[in-house]
């Protein structure tokens, strides 16, 4: 009732001061008027799965659904899960009245809109006024946002096909007129002022540490005991037992169907029915003193107490105490155990060797740890927990510190290698990958793939002092022998128009003043990841892929999809490229490169072929020096027959080799075998793998892990030319627009799309032709992409199992639910229903009309006026917008390099939302909001 009064006052103020921002008041407040025989909406809702939607997130199945959806956080904290299992999950704190409880799941205001402005009786009695004040009626479009088939759910639980009309009947809650609850003069059981209500208990007893007790209670029939009284059956029982009228007003009924009195009456049999009035022990409980709580009244129910209501034969049912007790058992399994039981691999990515060669430090992405290996015994001697998704690792020149980049939480962990403990965590840019210090260990350089820049960290202050612009997808790093320069590779090409060759950058930082010294452009190449500078400092080697996207992807057999090689960046600015491929025996996904201290050999890991190539530097140099300028520019970068002249051999290693490190004496090369959870030891003299260092990964190989192996392997491609990873590094994008055969040769160019967190965003492809990931990756893939035998059904299942678990990065632009002023204004524009001049915008013309939360797609096909003369259809899949900032370029053919261009250049007729009335500052606000999704 207090909430009602507050908002009645608020409404008066709002009326006098102009239109107020609506806020959510919660179902309890709605129930003030909608909980009577005539208006039976509250109890009717309370009995539906909608009301239990939030609580179901505590179930073990929720953890499994989240896991296979690539959702790493607790479902109770996931915007994706909460987007359909709660109301106002994306609202800011100021938009939630104290009477609002997110634990009430999908409640009244999820369908009818925030209630503060229409809740007053005089407004509600005037339908037009209520509508004006924001009351809305849900429609099929709104319901289908959450009720479309989700493969994440159907894979784990039984979900009946959603029939909109039937569903509306099930949740129907008609009713109008009659007296309000207070006016009915119902009797009150106990009227005990000491009862605080379940929501007070739940304020502490909700989370994982408390075993999700509140959620478990909500899933019991106790919680619906009051709501049950609103049913026809309850009225029949009541009538048979001599209770007239609405059982909800009967003291006799309420004695066993509710707890105490007050606002939480409607929540049925709550905690305090079993544990005693909370006001007696709440202070002691909150202080974490169970003994004291017991001393002042916290109790546990006895059988006799249960039987006070559960009398044998009451209402025609028997009471089986143990059976009933198990149903309300607070310690029954929940998602915490399911989350903890997930198989955790190591997935070593990069490594570093101590200056004395005795220790090897391995960044293990899947276990969020830095493994410490004794190189003599070749055993793991310690594992140090670092941040989320550790990727790169480097050591200070004296070997005293390790710096580990954590691409999942945008930090660098500083590890004291003497004490083997974390001593600091430094915030850097988005998705940090490569890390390296300067020669004096005063500055750390961090390549941030997500924000396309380089963090410059002062190691004395242990903080980022500036950010340098890199290319796109800053990835690997290497320091020149004289310490004057740091080379930073970039995974993605600069933006280029369709049918224009890629242009990728290697950024050179001058360490003296930490500014950009040069940007070496590598033409017709992308996926530049590994880099190492020769001991003489006269050149650097980088790994690269030459993607042939200028022609339709039909020439795999001729080597015209992708070739793989190295770039040679000479000190005079010249850039050469050489392929590591051989005809029909490609070297897919060259990932890292390491040059031996004597400068004679370079080792290159081939992530897609499970091999390490050994490059003879002198022979490589000779080939280049003896070639004409024309040949160096045009012939050698594409020549499949040259590698046999300078690649001594390929050494077989474990699955998915990634980072490389050479021992200081040049005797060994260590190779991170990412999908074997091990490190290969290559004897440089023998040119072969002589040992494997087991990092202690689990024996069990899950289906998803098998799929991860398939994803990263080029075995599925003719000649082992490329892998899924070649186009989707880290599950993301390669920034390239392709002409793919199934849509017709020479037509329908399509921008590559991310695989992060896509499971429930079907259909797939811009044309929406693939209803499932398995169809996307099934036989058609072999026909049009890989040109060898298609995946077996088992392989397809495994591949899908992996792809759907590829996690989406945490959103960098939104911390908690609070928005910046610009983001807040942008959200209003995203949801607006009228133009700046007051003209109504139809639902299909609103951003939120086609891009509703939580995935910000309604998964439909629509025309937004972007079809070009190359397109054979004008409707395209509505893309999800989660982390949209990391997947430029935009639109189906990648024509928009920035979010701004979608509307400034490619929406001239308001077909892609009504936007042309927006001022420039409004568009900026809209984009700031989009980046938070």
């Amino acid at each position, binding site marked *: 009732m207090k909430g009602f009064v507050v908002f009645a006052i608020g409404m008066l103020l709002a009326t006098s001061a102009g239109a107020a921002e609506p806020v959510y008041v919660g179902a309890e407040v709605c129930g003030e008027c909608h909980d009577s025989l005539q208006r039976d909406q509250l109890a009717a809702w309370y009995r539906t799965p909608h009301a239990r939607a939030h609580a179901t997130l505590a179930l073990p199945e929720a953890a499994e659904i989240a896991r296979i959806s690539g959702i790493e956080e607790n479902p109770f904290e996931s915007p994706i899960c909460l987007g359909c299992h709660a109301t106002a999950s994306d609202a800011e704190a100021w938009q939630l009245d104290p009477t609002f409880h997110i634990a009430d799941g999908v409640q009244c205001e999820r369908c009818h809109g925030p209630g503060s402005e229409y809740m007053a009786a005089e407004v509600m009695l005037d339908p037009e006024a209520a509508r004006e004040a924001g009351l809305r009626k849900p429609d099929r479009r709104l319901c289908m946002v959450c009720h479309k088939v989700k493969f994440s759910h159907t894979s784990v639980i039984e979900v009946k096909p959603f029939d909109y009309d039937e569903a509306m009947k099930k949740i129907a809650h008609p009713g109008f007129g009659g007296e309000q609850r207070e006016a009915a003069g119902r009797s009150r059981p106990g009227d005990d002022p000491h009862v605080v209500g379940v929501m007070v208990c739940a304020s502490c007893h909700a989370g994982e540490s408390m075993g999700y007790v509140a959620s478990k209670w909500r899933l019991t029939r106790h919680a619906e005991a009051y709501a049950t009284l609103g049913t026809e059956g309850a009225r029949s029982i009541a009538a048979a037992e001599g209770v007239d009228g609405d059982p909800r007003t009967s003291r006799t009924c309420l004695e066993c169907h509710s707890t105490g009195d007050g606002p939480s009456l409607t929540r049925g049999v709550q905690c305090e029915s079993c544990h005693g009035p909370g006001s007696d022990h709440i202070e002691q409980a909150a202080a974490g003193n169970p003994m004291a709580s017991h001393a002042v009244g916290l109790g546990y129910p006895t059988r006799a107490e249960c039987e006070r209501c559960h009398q044998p034969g009451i209402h025609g049912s028997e009471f089986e105490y143990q059976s009933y007790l198990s149903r309300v058992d607070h310690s029954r399994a929940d998602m915490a155990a399911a989350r903890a039981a997930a198989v955790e691999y190591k997935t070593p990515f990069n490594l570093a060797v101590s200056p004395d060669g005795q220790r090897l430090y391995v960044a293990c992405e899947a276990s969020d740890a830095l493994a410490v290996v004794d190189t003599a015994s070749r055993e793991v001697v310690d594992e140090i927990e670092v941040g989320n998704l550790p990727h790169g690792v480097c050591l200070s020149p004296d070997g005293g510190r390790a710096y580990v980049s954590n691409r999942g939480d945008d930090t660098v962990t500083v590890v004291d290698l003497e004490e083997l403990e974390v001593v600091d965590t430094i915030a850097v840019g988005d998705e940090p990958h490569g890390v390296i210090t300067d020669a004096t260990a005063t500055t750390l350089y961090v390549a941030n793939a997500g*924000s396309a820049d380089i963090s410059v960290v002062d190691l004395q202050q242990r903080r980022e002092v*500036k950010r*340098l612009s890199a290319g796109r997808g800053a990835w690997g790093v290497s320091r020149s022998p004289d310490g004057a320069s740091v080379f930073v590779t970039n995974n993605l090409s600069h933006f280029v128009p369709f049918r224009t060759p890629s242009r990728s950058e290697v950024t050179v930082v001058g360490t003296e*003043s930490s500014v950009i010294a040069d*940007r070496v452009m590598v033409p017709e190449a992308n996926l530049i990841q590994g880099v190492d500078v020769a001991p003489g400092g006269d050149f650097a080697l980088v790994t690269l892929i030459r993607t042939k996207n200028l022609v339709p992807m039909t020439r795999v057999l001729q080597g015209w999809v992708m070739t793989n090689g190295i770039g040679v960046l000479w000190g005079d600015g010249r850039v050469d490229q050489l392929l590591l491929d051989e005809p029909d025996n490609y070297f897919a996904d060259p990932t890292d490169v390491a040059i031996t201290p004597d400068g004679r050999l370079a080792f290159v890991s081939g992530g897609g072929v499970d091999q390490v190539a050994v490059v003879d530097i002198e022979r490589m140099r000779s080939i280049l020096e003896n070639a004409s300028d024309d040949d160096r520019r045009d012939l050698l970068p594409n020549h499949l027959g040259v590698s046999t002249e300078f690649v001594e051999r390929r050494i077989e290693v474990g699955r998915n080799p990634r980072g490389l490190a050479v021992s200081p004496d040049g005797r060994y090369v260590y190779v991170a075998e990412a999908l074997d959870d091990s490190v290969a030891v290559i004897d440089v003299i023998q040119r072969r793998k002589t040992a494997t260092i087991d990092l202690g990964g689990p024996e069990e190989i899950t289906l998803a892990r098998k799929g991860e192996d398939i994803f990263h392997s080029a075995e599925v491609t003719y000649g082992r030319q490329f892998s899924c990873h070649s186009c989707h590094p880290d599950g993301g994008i390669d920034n390239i627009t392709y002409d793919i055969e199934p849509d017709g040769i020479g037509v329908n160019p399509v921008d590559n799309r991310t695989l992060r967190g896509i499971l429930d965003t079907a259909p797939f492809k811009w044309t929406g032709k693939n209803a499932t990931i398995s169809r996307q990756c099934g036989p058609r893939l072999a026909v049009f992409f890989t040109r060898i035998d298609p995946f077996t059904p088992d392989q397809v299942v495994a591949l899908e199992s992996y792809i759907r678990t590829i996690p989406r990065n945490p959103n960098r632009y939104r911390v908690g639910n609070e928005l910046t002023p610009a983001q807040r204004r942008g959200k209003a524009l995203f949801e607006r229903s009228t133009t700046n001049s007051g003209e109504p915008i139809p639902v299909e013309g609103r951003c939120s009309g086609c891009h509703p939360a939580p995935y910000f797609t309604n998964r439909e096909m629509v025309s937004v006026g972007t079809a070009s003369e190359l397109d054979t259809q004008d409707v395209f899949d509505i893309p999800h917008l989660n982390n949209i900032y990391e997947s430029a370029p935009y639109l189906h053919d990648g024509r928009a390099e920035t979010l701004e261009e979608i509307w400034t250049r490619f929406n001239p007729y308001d077909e892609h939302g009504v936007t042309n009335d927006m001022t*420039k*500052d409004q568009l*900026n606000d809209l984009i700031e909001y989009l980046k938070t999704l």
Partner: protein
Amino acid sequence: MTSSSTSRRCSAIPALVFAILVLATWTVAAQVTEKPAAAGEPYVYTHWETFYAEEDGLPNDHIFALTADGDRLWVGTEDGLALYEDKTWRSWREKDGLPWRVVSAIAVSEKTGDVWVGLLGGGLARFSGGRFDHFNQFNSGLVNDVVYGVAVLDDTVWVATTAGMSALNTVTGEWEIYTEKNAPMEEIWCYNVDAGDGKVYAAVWGGGILEWDVETRRWNAHRDPDREMEIDLYRDDGLIHIITTSASYVDEVLWASTYFGLSRYDGRHWRGWMDHDSGLASNFINIAKGRSGTSCYSATDYGVAVLSDFATDTWVSYRRETEDAETWTAYIGTGNEERRTVVTDLSLPNHFVIALEFQGDDLWIGTGHGLARGVGKGFFEGLSKAEASPREEEGQ
């Protein structure tokens, strides 16, 4: 606009006349002798080097912007960006990747070394490691492509445009726009911007000087209190005129140029100068740049006016004595009282000065026809120290 029309006139000078001018310049230069300044006198730039387009390496001699970066000088012209370093010119035109031909403003980030280039009609460019990144009103949050001024403060690039101010946070990528909707802008035509000490100063053509406090995120407006267009009704009551063209913040002093004179604000007191009461040869100031809290250089449509010493109101004004004079003359005086003149060897044919910059002891000026460097050999701040100035003697 005025500058371009002047430039067009100058560019029509016949080659023969030009050659004669160059020859005469050398002759005069040979005649100028550098003498030590007398006690209490201001420094005078007597020896100048001049630079024109094709013959000297500039991409174009319509100079719009000058920015020193240590020993390097960045020059914005009507057709390209130029860099002067180690007595050598390099330049970038559109064919070299410059996104737009007209460079109207340049700022160098102290932190990153990146060069931010304002493009008149083309938006903004970042020049970093040889790469141009283009930001315009279509592909970014920049409010308008007609850019007049650029300044960098910490991680934020401030851009003065014809439709308001834009601010780009280079770390987050967020753009902010300030117009009449969210700033005290009576007009939105922002002509220039300067930044320092946590403050950003925007010169708004018709809107005075707007001061942005980075910490409080609030604007403070400095306007002409008397609101008179043609006269300064109450002397030193505030900004001298609301049609401002530049702001320059140095040593906690704000210098503001207008088309009706120069203003100085020390945070408490305003001081204004017009041509009738100072060494300003013209009230039409394209840009003013403070060299210190007590000295300011004004680029006018009639040469360069230097307030050499605020305390003594000592001025040095550089201009050609007559339209057909072969070299420029320095007029030295107190207030509007001219004491003496010094002939310099500066031979630029156009004294519509649009840009100026300090580089060490040297002074660079950019005009509608060529660029010149005043060689600051023996340069000193204020007045020569051999004798105290009269005001100092009076204890003022």
